[in-house]
């Protein structure tokens, strides 16, 4: 502590931010590993079979086996690809997925530190900007692979992701009209003082949920990598570590979307009971808040996994129809109705 106090405030801030980044990164990696494991187990149970249960008790060490396999597999670059973009694409997919976690409040505070990496006043705008970058990775992968299945996957993915970004952005505008600020900690404070926003804006939640499925390329919108139609879609030509980066990017997107949904609609780290809706004053309270947040993310991830095995895939024209001709008018209608309601009840 003495060494810590000797540094200037600027350096202290850097050090603490570094620790927070390392923690969030480690947490997301672990969450990713166990999300893959949970997906395999849950999808197996839905299909009347058992998932992997041999490695470790109940198969809990399976992610370690997967990780070792990823490292030891041959990393093959086919001859016909455009090498520069081929190597860039996994990184361009992976990085924005993790960047969008920087503004999400994981808890209230531990000691004197707020549990956000960057408490931006334009939090949500930052997130939507980063999510738009995520399109490039898939498009590059499809283009660079120079072969028909990845090409089709990349085209479909680009159109799909761009269409649903608009619906996603418009659907949360009423929320910020109610809250009055784009800062995510303010959104949580607003929900702590009143009801959760999912009860005040159910239509916005529904549109955001479905748009989140489309943005993360999960069923029922996974045309980009539909295994039954396109072999692997945009990640057909990738092996070992590059494929693992794509996979990590997809699951990190899922985790980030779940975290956004929990923060915007389900009250983030608060629970309306036991006085847990105020920022914590003790270390235990802070840890409890983080635990609540993680629990809610797990429930949302379970929803993502469950819906994958529940619904058939959308056809491409049905998907575009839904995104442009149905969600955007409904989201606009929602904005008008909320505006009128706020004006009338002022």
């Amino acid at each position, binding site marked *: 502590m003495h060494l810590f106090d000797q540094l200037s405030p600027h350096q202290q801030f850097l050090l603490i931010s570094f620790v927070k980044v390392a923690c969030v990164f480690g947490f997301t990696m672990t969450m990713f590993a166990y999300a893959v494991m949970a997906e395999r187990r849950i999808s197996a149970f839905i299909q009347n*079979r058992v998932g992997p249960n041999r490695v470790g008790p109940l198969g809990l060490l399976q992610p370690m086996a997967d990780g070792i396999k990823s490292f030891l597999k041959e990393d093959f670059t086919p001859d016909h690809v455009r090498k520069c973009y081929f190597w860039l694409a996994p990184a361009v997919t992976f990085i924005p997925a993790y960047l969008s976690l920087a503004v999400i409040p994981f808890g209230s505070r531990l000691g004197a530190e707020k549990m956000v990496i960057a408490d931006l006043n334009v939090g949500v705008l930052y997130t939507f900007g980063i999510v738009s970058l995520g399109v490039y990775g898939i498009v590059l992968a499809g283009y660079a692979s120079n072969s028909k299945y990845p090409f089709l996957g990349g085209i479909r993915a680009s159109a799909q992701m761009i269409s649903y970004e608009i619906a996603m952005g418009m659907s949360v505008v009423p929320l910020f009209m109610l809250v009055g600020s784009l800062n995510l900690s303010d959104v949580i404070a607003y929900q702590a003082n009143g009801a959760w926003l999912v009860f005040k804006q159910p239509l916005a939640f529904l549109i955001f949920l479905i748009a989140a499925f489309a943005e993360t390329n999960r069923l029922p919108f996974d045309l980009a990598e539909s295994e039954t139609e396109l072999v692997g879609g945009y990640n057909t030509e990738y092996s070992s570590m590059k494929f693992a980066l794509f996979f990590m990017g997809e699951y990190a997107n899922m985790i980030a979307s779940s975290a956004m949904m929990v923060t915007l609609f389900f009250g983030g780290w608060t629970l309306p009971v036991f006085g847990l809706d105020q920022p914590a004053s003790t270390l235990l309270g802070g840890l409890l808040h983080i635990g609540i947040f993680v629990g809610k993310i797990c429930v949302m991830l379970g929803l993502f996994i469950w819906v994958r095995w*529940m619904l058939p895939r959308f056809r491409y024209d049905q998907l575009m129809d839904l995104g442009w001709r149905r969600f955007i008018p409904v989201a606009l209608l929602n904005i008008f109705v909320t505006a009128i309601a706020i004006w009338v009840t002022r």
Partner: protein
Amino acid sequence: MIVNRKELNLWERLYLPAVIGGFKVTVKHFFQKKVTMQYPEEKWSVPQGYRGAPYLVKDQESRTKCVSCQLCEFVCPPKAIRITPPGPELNPETGNVEKRPKEFEIDMLRCIFCGFCQEVCPEEAIFLMKDYALTGESRKEMVYKKEKLLALGGVHHDRIMKWKRKETEAEKQEAFPVAKE
């Protein structure tokens, strides 16, 4: 052929009944009994007449029943069996059973478990048993020799006991000198 496409009402066009139906089906299946068998702990029971690995048998007096007629070697489709018959000199331990094989090898990697050897054997000396999971660490290890085949084959109760009956009849007739065991 005319396909009837029903007009969907508003409720159905929102896809909500489809989604709710999907919920019900997946939840039902989540809690149903799983069909997976945890393999090394639970094994399935082989049906009767199952053709596993072929092994040599002894009768209830521990005599090897095989007489190296080499019919199984001849009929085996992938030529997995190799027999070396004994030479012309009498083997004192086999008594009046002629031609016990000097060496009998079955290459388990070539065997196709067809059962022709069991069908063609005139002495009922080779049987396909219930063993289906054969493992070894090298190709040499998977070529089973006579001792291993006899050990794995076990005892087959012989109601006829051909050679013993011949021995006792010959003794009664005293037509040939019989070498005592």
